[in-house]
């Protein structure tokens, strides 16, 4: 999978010593960039610092969901590119160009003569590549919708996981506060009123006597 701006660049990523690796199935295919994935996960771990196994699982899943959404976007773009010849065929057919099928096949093979010919035909009809893309989308609308559904599902799962982390941490903070409060109470019980030292008592007595003398 080629590098792109929507993922961190592949560099030596130092992943934390994860304790629950065995729980995660393989997330990457041969075509995926392991370095980019590791960098993404390492960044998430460095930012979030999961403090227990549940948080570690959630953090990894957020990374996996982001990765999955990006991968599906790329696959959708690849589908549009791979099927562009179908869009060209549709447009040329609509324009009643003779030999449109062969021309579109040559265009998809990037033959310079065919590319120039298609560009000229489109320009003459006042059309552009957007029309070709629209026709391609029309032809593959079911698959595109499926990809959109997968992308949305991945993002929804990511949001749900973030929500779970927020709830869990709120619950943990509440519990921690309560235990801490209880610890404070226990310390209060341990304290007792201690009589001041004798010297201090004598000093206070002398001060009281001096005040009475002044009065």
């Amino acid at each position, binding site marked *: *999978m080629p590098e792109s701006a929507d993922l961190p660049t592949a560099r030596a990523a130092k992943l*934390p*010593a994860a*304790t*629950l690796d*065995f*729980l*995660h*199935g*393989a*997330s990457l*295919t*041969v*075509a995926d960039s392991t370095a980019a994935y590791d960098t993404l996960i390492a960044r998430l771990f460095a930012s979030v*610092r*999961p*403090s*227990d*196994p*549940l948080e*570690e*699982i959630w953090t990894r899943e957020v990374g996996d969901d982001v990765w999955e959404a990006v*991968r599906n976007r790329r*696959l*959708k773009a*690849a*589908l549009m*590119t*791979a*099927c562009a010849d179908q869009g060209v065929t549709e447009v040329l057919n609509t324009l009643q160009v003779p030999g449109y099928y062969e021309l579109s096949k040559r265009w998809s093979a990037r033959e310079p003569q065919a590319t120039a010919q298609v560009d000229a035909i489109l320009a003459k009809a006042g059309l552009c590549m957007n029309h070709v893309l629209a026709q391609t989308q029309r032809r593959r609308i*079911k*698959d595109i919708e*499926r*990809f959109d*559904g*997968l992308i949305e*599902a991945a993002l929804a*799962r990511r949001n*749900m*996981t973030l929500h*779970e982390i927020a*709830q*869990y941490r709120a*619950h*943990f903070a*509440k*519990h*921690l506060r*309560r*235990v801490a409060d*209880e610890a404070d109470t226990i310390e209060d019980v341990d304290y007792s009123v201690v009589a001041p030292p004798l010297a201090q008592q004598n000093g206070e007595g002398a001060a009281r006597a001096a005040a009475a003398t002044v009065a």
Partner: protein
Amino acid sequence: MRRDRRAFSSRANAQKSTGPKTPAGKAAAARNAYRHGLNLPVLGDPALSREVDDAACKIVTPLIGGEPAGRQRELACRIAEPIIDIRRVRDAKLPLIAALQADPKNSAALKELVVLDRYERRARSRRKFAIREFCAVSLAPVEDGAAAATAPGILAKRSYLG
């Protein structure tokens, strides 16, 4: 009489159009439930159920500061079970993703991927409720001095991953 004839025709037509007819079709349909096996419960497989138990201990021990037992162990297994399920779904999805990366026009792989995605969503939902229940039982504020029993869990949580 007309009703009887209609019912007879209906049954005859239904017999004609229901299910595969050829031996090959019947064999293919018989394998429908065994395509990925993700509907089968994890605990039905002895190897996976051992893995669930192991995972439950590894997940919950740092949270409660000790080995889970009784109700806590049961809830921990309920957390671990969908986690193992999610892993199975992901393992099943991987070859389909690879097929799509090789050929983005592969509609069959895409359809199957959408189906498998549902299994992951369900497993995650199960895990969400299991975690909530575990937190409510094991990390809930308690009324008497039993709060001290959960305090080591918090200390263990702090020291997790250094």
